[in-house]
């Protein structure tokens, strides 16, 4: 595992007295598909938010290549080459699918207000190129022909795909997917699984995803990290993780229930 694209060290995120992420170390190899799993409330999305700058980690460091991300604004992190999707779809309502993708391209476009007002040749050709690229992306995610639909009028599955297209528009090196198959039926989930593979293979991406669908996680992932109660409790290849007793405990409950409960109360109190 040489040259991790993302490496987090001792990341802690506290909200007042509540510690949502407690000292997580995590590194993602370049070009891999890495998954982050864990029960609800384990702190997975909070960790995502720390990476993308929505939250500022209370302690610790998150490095993207050699660049420190903690303290950067979300727009700076996007500029650096990280894009994400959301657990509950957050497309720009009232804008068409194409416009959503064009907003995603924002950091890669240069034209300023004056160029737009005057319609300078540079601005015009940039807009044309951007539009063409947006059409290509639309086709790539399987939304060809839906470009002029308002985002909110697309079906659920298509909205998910549009969100990915919007994330791809910023030309990221690392793509964070927060539960990409939430609310999908088994067929759609299968499609999404192949799509995620295709993304990595064809677009040269590293993909880091949060997911509850174990079939998908175990099939596509090169590396699986497991979180529970804010801590990373296991990491490894899918088969290693599946055998790990702490993971089984987190998902299925421990045999010694009383002991676990006691421990958990302690954690909340701290």
């Amino acid at each position, binding site marked *: 595992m040489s040259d991790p694209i993302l490496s987090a060290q001792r990341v802690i995120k506290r909200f007042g007295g509540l510690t949502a992420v407690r000292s997580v170390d995590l590194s993602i190899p370049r070009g891999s598909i890495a998954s982050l799993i864990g029960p609800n409330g384990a702190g997975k999305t909070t960790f995502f938010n720390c990476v993308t700058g929505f939250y500022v980690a209370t302690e610790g460091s998150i490095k993207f290549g050699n660049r420190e991300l903690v303290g950067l604004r979300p727009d700076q992190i996007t500029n650096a080459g990280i894009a994400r999707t959301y657990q509950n779809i957050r497309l720009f309502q009232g804008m068409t699918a*194409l*416009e959503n993708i064009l907003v995603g391209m924002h*950091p890669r476009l240069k034209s300023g207000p004056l160029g737009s007002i005057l319609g300078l040749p540079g601005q015009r050709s940039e807009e044309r190129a951007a*539009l063409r690229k947006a059409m290509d992306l639309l086709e790539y995610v399987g939304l060809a022909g839906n470009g*002029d639909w308002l985002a909110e009028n697309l079906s659920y599955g298509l909205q998910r795909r549009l969100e990915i297209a919007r994330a791809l528009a*910023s030309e990221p090196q690392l793509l964070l997917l927060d539960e990409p198959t939430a609310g999908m039926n088994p067929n759609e989930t299968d499609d999404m699984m192949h799509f995620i593979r295709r993304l990595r293979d064809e677009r040269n991406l590293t993909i880091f995803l949060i997911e509850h669908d174990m079939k998908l996680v175990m099939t596509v992932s090169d590396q699986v990290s497991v979180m529970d109660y804010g801590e990373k409790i296991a990491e490894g290849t899918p088969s290693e993780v599946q055998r790990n007793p702490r993971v089984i405990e987190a998902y299925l409950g421990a045999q010694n229930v009383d002991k676990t409960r006691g421990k958990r109360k302690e954690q909340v109190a701290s």
Partner: protein
Amino acid sequence: MIASSTFRQGSYAAAVAILLALTGVFGKLDERQVVTGAITLSMVLLAIMLCGAGLMTASRVKERGIVAMLFNGILGSLIVGAGLALVMLVENAIDLTFVFAELKTDPITPVLTFGQTLSSGIILLLVLSALAGAISGALLSIPSEARQIILLSLALTASVGLLEAQIKSINTLPDALAVVGVLGTGYLVAINQMQRSSLVRLGLGLGIGAIVGIVLGLIANGGGFGTGSRLLSAPGILSQVIVFALIGGMGSAVAATQRNIHNGTLFVVGFLLSIGVLNWQNSMNWIATLLILIVFATLFWLMPRLTAEASSRFETQPRPERQVNQRFSLLIVLLVMLVAPLFLGQYITSIFDLVGLYIIMGIGLNIAVGYTGLLVLGFVAFFALGAYTVGTLTTPSLLTCGGILPADIARADIPTICTGVMTFWQAWPIAVIVSMLAGVVLGIPVLRLRGDYLAIVTLGFGEIIRLITLSGDFKPIFGGAQGIGNIPVPVVDLTFLNPAWRFELGSAFNIYYLILFGIVITAFVAYRLGSTRLGRAWRAIRADEDVARAMGINLTRAKLLSFAVGAGFAGLGGAIFGSWLQGIFPNSFTVLVSINVLALIIIGGLGSIPGVMLGAVILVGLPEILRELQDYRLLAFGVLLVVVMLARPEGLIPPPVRRLSEQVDSATPQQGKA
């Protein structure tokens, strides 16, 4: 049979009617004639009240069939009529004027008894109420499309009647018929030649218009039947040919165009014909009323059909064809706006000037509120800054006289002259820049605020600016409560071309062109910004600020630019306002102006430039015309806002969905995947 809701709703309506009656509204509106010698504005109000109650109560029993609707409608209207009758009885029994002082000059009884004695008047009122209720019930039982046609044509006929004196001399009936004829010919020709390109169709329209123009000119001049007509007795056949060619071209362009332009053209046609009828009859008598009603009813019956056909023809064209159509239509609209003051007369033009200033401000506020979603309630501050900047820079003041008060110069006999005084043309860019900077200065501290908090802070900002201009400390610069007077009017000096070409833009006619220019510039800039990278960033921020930020949008920069551009537009409006009125006072810049601008963009449609224009016409133009209603202006705004929010939550003209995928097709062919 009788629904309990009928009594409840009828009582509500009656309460509203009684309250309004006690403010003396009937007496005030009785002066204004809608149909000469027959129907006054107060009768119209009474009809609205009675029918409104009838419609409300009848609509509650809609599923029970026509008899129930008639019955409950009559009952609802009767409750209102009875309420008003009761007020009259009370007014005659005891003296109400010590509480309701307005009744002293505008008593209710003489109006609502229709000049009869009290008892027979009340009987008449109740009979009329029952009739209104029955009409309401019947209206509800016919198809909704027919109902809309009836109500809209009644409303527009009433507005023509109201404006009789101001609009009577705009055009004659031969004018209107000639315009409609040529427009229609161009339209029909274009429909039959849809297989040809839009340029060919335009050419046909232009040619046919020109030929008709020559013929009409010859007939009119030869037969002397164009007397009094503006278009037909125009000086010289050449101008006639040009005008009619353009009208014919417009007809062919409109045959395949978007909804807004098509509807707008039909409205203009309707008004031209109505004014023609009015001009021919020379007053709003029964014949004119009936004819105008027929004109509008036909228009509204045709409108949905024709517009749907025209817009579907428009949609099926390839994009370059559409652009030819669109650009030609815009050109015509601009030309019409250019010559409009010559026809509209002083009074209507001055209303247009005011509407225009509000359009400029509305386009500016629309950038902050409509595009970016930043609720700014103190927008008048930027308007005031623009006006005061021009005011201080173009008059002798502390700033322009090198730090010496102009008054002191005279007294102390200092041989200084105020060399710093600028012309309007030098001052307005500074005014715009000052307003933009103020936008940024206000923007920085409030960047993190959202929604309500932002609204409150900006509301305060508006008041701060007004209080600064009012304060004694700044009196040497801003003139305190007296404001700044003697602001010179903008002068367009073209004497180097022709010694006679020196125009002072002081009159309503001349300033109109400056305002029109301002609207064109601001609308253009807003359109360009709105449809490119920055505009998309703004709309993304409005939709979801956090995600927009995660998309790599620099919120600080985007929001400050939004504030600055919006403020700059308001500054431009203020600069024109100050030099038009030649004097400015702190009290012209109250929070009511901000509220007005906000209300007009909400009613027009947030984020839509045509919406801003329509909103300004409705919210600024109509109150100017209905001067009697000045006291009820805010009440009417409130009612209008509620009605629009219920009926069309996105505003009257919502922003269009941008169909970008077509632009790709017309662009250069794809050069492989990026």
